[in-house]
């Protein structure tokens, strides 16, 4: 499938696909065979690249502008989405969206970061960087889910909470802490899926559920690779090194038992076939929810405690 934005390391594939497009434009019977060969070559190339992605390349895939975002998931995976807005204290923050919806027939609360797709929507959603009111809205919705016995599905995709003046004034830190607390004390099952970037506190605030899933090429880290590089090496350009050193890939985090399962992406990343990618996430959520079926509120809280306490205590592969 041809895509609009190629990443640096996808250049060999981009070149092949360009050639294919040129050949197809000329038409003719002899072309068909050649195109077939090139297609095969491009596919092999893509497979080679995507089975050998390093942490910094994955970071770029996770940030790919064509990667499915919150609203894409909502449109494909959920029915009857009713968006709920505002924190009832200050304002509505579109960086974090949420509401009531049906997932495979059953009502749930769905929450997540929305990054926006073009300049206008990116500004509207503040590039998915939540402010205190966004996290306070999340708390409101999580509490609503608890009262009405609905599971919570959280889709995490943020470079981090917004580092702004207003956010600090209104208690960004407190809002994040309360959001973590709301996830951990919830009476009903909560599944968190890191679908793109899991950026630090802004991510963990929605990723403190019973099950934490992560897409194959998503990243999850305590600080952005650029941020770590500028602190540790005083050089943001060394992000590739810190991305490797911090072990931020789904594969590493599954080994560490920080995430419970890795959701496979279509070959070449979620942006190459969003429909399949979203479907796979749906399957993984359904499976994760089924393992929590029949658990009482106390069971669910105990499971979260056991899950998070075990991290780092038990060995890993």
């Amino acid at each position, binding site marked *: 499938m041809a895509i609009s934005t190629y990443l640096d390391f996808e250049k060999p594939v981009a070149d092949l696909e360009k050639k294919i497009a040129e050949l197809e434009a000329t038409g003719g019977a002899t072309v068909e065979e050649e195109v077939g060969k090139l297609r095969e070559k491009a596919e092999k190339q893509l497979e080679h690249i995507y089975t050998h992605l390093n942490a910094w390349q994955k970071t770029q895939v996770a940030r790919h502008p064509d990667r499915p975002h919150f609203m894409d998931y909502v449109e494909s995976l959920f029915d009857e989405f009713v968006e709920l807005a505002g924190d009832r204290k200050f304002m509505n923050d579109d960086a974090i969206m949420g509401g009531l919806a049906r997932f495979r027939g059953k009502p749930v609360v769905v929450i997540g970061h929305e990054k926006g797709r073009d300049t206008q929507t990116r500004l509207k959603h503040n590039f998915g960087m939540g402010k205190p009111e966004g996290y306070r809205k999340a708390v409101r919705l999580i509490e609503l889910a608890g009262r009405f016995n609905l599971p919570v599905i959280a889709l995490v995709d943020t470079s981090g*909470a917004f580092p702004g003046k207003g956010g600090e004034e209104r*208690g960004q*830190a407190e809002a*994040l802490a309360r959001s973590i607390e709301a996830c951990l004390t919830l009476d009903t099952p909560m599944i968190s899926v890191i679908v793109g970037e899991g950026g630090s506190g802004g991510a963990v605030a929605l990723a403190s559920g019973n099950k934490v899933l992560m897409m194959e090429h998503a990243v999850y880290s305590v600080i952005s690779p650029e941020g770590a590089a500028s602190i*540790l*090496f005083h050089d943001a350009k060394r992000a590739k090194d810190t991305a490797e050193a*911090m*072990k931020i890939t789904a594969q590493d985090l599954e080994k560490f038992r920080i995430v419970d399962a890795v959701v496979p992406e279509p070959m070449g990343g979620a942006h190459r076939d969003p429909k399949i990618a979203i479907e796979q996430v749906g399957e993984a959520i359904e499976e994760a929810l089924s393992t929590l079926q029949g658990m009482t509120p106390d069971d669910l809280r105990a499971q979260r405690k056991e899950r998070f306490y075990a*991290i*780092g205590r038990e060995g890993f592969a």
Partner: protein
Amino acid sequence: MNWLTNLPPGLKSIFAKKDDTEGDSLWVKCPKTGELVYRQELESAYWVTQSGAHMRISPEQRFKYMFDGGLWTEIPMPPVMRDPLKFKDDKRYTDRLKAAKAKTGREDCMVAAHGEINGRKAVILVQDFAFMGGSLGMAAGEAFIKAAETAVARKAALIVVTASGGARMQESSFALMQMPRTVLAIQDVKRARLPYIVILSDPTSGGVLASYAMLGDVQIAEPGAQLAFTGPRVIEATIREKLPEGFQRSEFLRERGMVDIVCSRKELTPTVGAILGMLMPPARGRRSKAQPADEVAAAK
């Protein structure tokens, strides 16, 4: 540059360079005014200089100032995996740990002890900024859990004195996971209806502020402490303007509704004592109707 710079090294060593509260120099420099203060004088003034600067102090000094009679029992900390990622930047993480241990004599940044405050059972957990900037990693997270469990087991209040640059980057996601882990530990204290009191000291930031440091039943801050989720430099770079004086300081957070009390270190122990006195029964004996234990204590 000041006149100290020109002194021969032998002489210079009797002056501490910065917040050297544990050193043995006779004179200490006030971080606010640069004025030299006599060490003994500072010690009896809770390490608060004439200008009101609250200097960073060690966990032992905290315990001494806060526990009744200066008596406490340190809580042993569980062993943890030290370098899960074999992390290396300019230096190996294990070398950084060794250096921090040599500097502070501690395994990591958190120290906990139990004792009494105003006759109420309390566990105090202190984060030592001198150990790798008080950064939150696995050892600190386990220490927090241990302190919370001890508080629940002893039916004691949990008091946490924070000082931290945030999560410890060298432990990456394992550090990040200490945010939910510490928040979980607090829930046990809350469910047991025991007070959880946070004392924010300079500086407290990042993942520490965005987890256990903002969830106290009562939030107290030492005057002038820098308390920021995102540090001022990063914000200034984002919004391209200078932040106003006092932004993200304790007094500012109180004004914005984020802390209950800004309290000088001298007033800290009586303030915490008063709060515990109203939220908890005395550790020893029940109050007799004729003579409440509080009044007996006050009469002494």
